[in-house]
């Protein structure tokens, strides 16, 4: 991807995942980073994406219900070569 020297907020927002995944080429990453230095709206946006990822990571795992655990164990015993 090649961006103009100056990029807009709308472009930064579109690139935010590529930026966080570190797949932008060096020039584009620099453009995004330069933009973030002076643009409060975009740095807030980037922070919020990071916060969103962090909160998503706090969702509780779903327990395996006991009935399913029993079924799995039964399947294992049926399969087991031992």
């Amino acid at each position, binding site marked *: 991807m090649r961006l103009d020297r100056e990029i807009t907020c709308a472009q930064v927002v579109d690139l935010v995942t590529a930026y966080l995944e570190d797949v932008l080429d060096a020039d584009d990453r620099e453009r995004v980073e330069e933009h973030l230095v002076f643009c409060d709206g975009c740095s807030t946006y980037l922070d919020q994406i990071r916060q969103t990822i962090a909160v998503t990571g706090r969702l509780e795992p*779903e327990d*395996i219900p006991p009935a399913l655990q029993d079924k799995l164990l039964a399947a294992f015993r049926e399969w087991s070569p031992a």
Partner: protein
Amino acid sequence: MVAQPPLEERRLVDALRAGDESAFTRLVEEYGPAMLRVARMFVSSRAVAEEVVQEAWVGVLNGIGRFEGRSSLKTWIFRILTNTAKTRAVREGRSIPFSSLAGEDEEGGAVDADRFLGDDTRFPGHWAAPPQRWEAAPEGRLLAAETLEVLEREIAKLPANQAVVVTMRDVEGFDADDVCNALDISETNQRVLLHRARTKLRRALEEYMQ
């Protein structure tokens, strides 16, 4: 060159092959909850998701003799899970396009276009309504149980392919390669699906935080 699987993993695989029940229980404990959550994104109900998980474990047991360690055990297990879930989804009449992004939703930019200034302004493409910092919200709000419920509901509303990707990446902490391997999709598709999902989740949190 193929990296050797970690010793711990090789031991588990050997134990499982030998019919060691505690190895099986450990794997179920470690991956079962994530499998259930991911399966839930493919199919219509929790009950069907449980059947998918059960079917996937039978697949794991039947295939473990052929597991070569070319991917990690975790990736391999989730590949079986997602293939099982995909098949089940198709049988339920839900086809979930992963390799083609076309038609799944037609959104343009990541954020509503009216948040940005138009072409007739001095700074087109710049924020008209910039996001407000969440730090201004009452302390702890972002981490409150209610916020997590907002996220759960929003994930449930996503197109299934986005829901699966964001669940694997951001809820369960898979890296991008693992997700591409498990779902058999390109890096670009994985990233686009993740981008769309995260964008909507941020927007849902924004509405809630205000």
